């Protein structure tokens, strides 16, 4: 009987310890996705929907996901198309995913091309969003050809602070000029890699959208 008492005390102690020593291990994942809406790239937005759907499939309770457009001035909350932090109740989470998908669908149907491409501003906005959410894992997805074109008067010579960030360029399409001089394309990729890595971030390029598992 003493043995039983000891076992009961041990179980109670374990339960109490589990209640008192709360270990909030942050395992959440935050994703900020930039959608290039400049020029002909809007035609690629259907591909972007695939990426968004795939990301939604993989996301778990507590994860944050925001999709923003890249236009003339992207350093603005107004450019965030839709954003969500998933609830920990499965039924609510399902509904959130459906709503998110619907918002993106509406955006893709009504989007109009922008004259300029402010990728830097988009990244800065993404950093701000993810820093606020403070997830365990931060990822910025750039769905663009990475050709930055700033409007007159826009200043973007700012260094990023990307420690703990993964920056993944998706579907980096080749421009007509890239076909004439492929070095332009490679230089563009190299330029962004250097900017991200020099800011302490991790750089990755995924052009094959059939292999999106690398995102997670």
């Amino acid at each position: 009987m003493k043995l039983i008492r000891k076992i009961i005390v041990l179980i109670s102690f374990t339960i109490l310890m589990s209640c008192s020593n709360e270990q909030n291990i942050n395992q959440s994942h935050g994703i900020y996705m930039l959608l290039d809406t400049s020029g002909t790239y809007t035609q690629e937005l259907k591909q972007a929907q695939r990426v968004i759907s795939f990301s939604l499939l993989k996301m778990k309770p507590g994860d944050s996901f925001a999709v923003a457009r890249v236009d003339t001035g992207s350093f603005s909350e107004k450019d965030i198309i839709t954003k969500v932090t998933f609830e920990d109740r499965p039924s609510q989470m399902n509904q959130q995913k459906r709503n998110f998908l619907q918002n993106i669908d509406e955006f893709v149907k009504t989007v109009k091309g922008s004259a300029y491409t402010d990728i830097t501003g988009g990244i800065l906005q993404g950093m701000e969003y993810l820093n606020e959410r403070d997830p365990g894992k931060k990822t910025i997805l750039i769905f663009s050809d990475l050709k930055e074109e700033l409007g007159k008067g826009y200043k973007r010579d700012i260094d990023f602070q990307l420690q703990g960030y993964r920056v993944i360029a998706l579907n980096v399409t080749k421009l007509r000029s890239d076909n004439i001089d492929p070095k332009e394309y490679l230089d563009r990729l190299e330029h962004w890699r250097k900017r991200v890595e020099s800011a302490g971030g991790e750089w990755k390029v995924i052009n094959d959208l059939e292999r999106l598992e690398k995102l997670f």
Partner: protein
Amino acid sequence: MLSLDSFGLSSPLGIVLMLVVAIIALYVSRQPAHRAIISFSKVIHNAMRLSAKSIMAVESRLSNRNREVLLEAGREAKERMIEREFERIDATVRRDLSEYPAMHRLLSEEITEIEQDYQASIETPPEPPGWVKAVDAVAKIPSKGDPMVGNVLEDIHASLNKANKAATKEYRKASHKRHEHLRKMMPHWRKLLTVLTRADKNVTSILSRSNTIDQHMQEYESITNGTDKAIRILSSSSLQHFFTSLFVMIIAAGIAMVNFQLIARPMSEMVGGTTSLFLGFYLNQIAAMVMILVEMTLGIFLMESLRITKLFPIVGSLNDKLRIRIAWFLFIMLLFLATIEAGLGFTREILMEADQATNALLRGEEAGAAALESSVTWITTGSQMALGFILPFVLMFVAIPFETFVQSFRTVLGIIAVGSLRTVAWSLRFVGTLFKFSGKSLLHVYDLIIFVPLFIEQKIKNKQFNNSVLTDEVRGVKA
């Protein structure tokens, strides 16, 4: 670093020289070296022997303690068995005794009926008619050829025949009536037989139970006397109980795992908590585990209240009214939790369907999502709900193997501890003996290394001995 080269001893001559020096040194220090080796081996041997002795003393104490515990557990179990047998006899006797007045009345009534029928069926010889004597006197009149007399006699004969026939008819009628009475007695006899057979069965049952009690009492006496046979039987049954209960508890753990899988996810719909970890578990998982543990605890206490197990004597010693009330309360609580689990099973199915529909939508399978909604899922829903309802009641019975496990675990642990102590003691003795004989062997090896000086010493001693003998002989001759 010093080496042989630094002393110029790397040459064969140097090595030989070194060996000679070493052998001489060993020879000179032979006596102290022998004493040191013997002392060392003795010290180790004695230390090991003493340690082994101490361990065996502990083993002996532990064995005695195990024996006491085993006997105590056996005595308690046997007492419980005897108590149960007496309770059964008590119930049988109470039931039969309560029926006894009714049975007695029934038997008396049946016997009275039989007696009445018997009295009614007694055969009474038919009364001879009164005129028979007169006829007899007339019949004795000598006829002497008188035709009148002959006619009279013939008339008398005819009358007699007629009377006889009437009497026979009457007699047959009476006999038939008596047979009817006898026939009526049959069901009474049968009823009597049934009642007596039942009584006999009850008595036989009591006798059989008394034989069982006798057997239990003999075993109980054997246990209280602490015989080796009792110890052997109890040890064997203890091991058997341990492994059986362990097997059942492993099955119960499997059931608990299934139950956990069934309720963990829908629990997140109730308590949330799937975003952060506590000791490696999500809050919904902890809640599911706690719920299962609570069900098991309720089950254990329900078994206690029903006096099926005796893990907590305080529950068993409560008065019957309170104990039954507690049992009902626990049962209702368990029923309540089982109902919640059934609800969680239902929620699980709904969540799964919603997940599948959303995933199909995200994969762009609109048709798939629609098909999922229209598919027949009531079978899996019903199965999950049924499982959720049944499993808490199944887990309730884990109290029985748990009690057996706890009781037999003490014995098994004791047996393992005794076995381990014996092994350690044997190892210590073995090492001690090894050192003892190693010391002796080392002496011989030592002597083998210095066999040359020893041989020379022996020769010198022999020569001295021969010389002294010779001198003694010469002295003896001279004298």
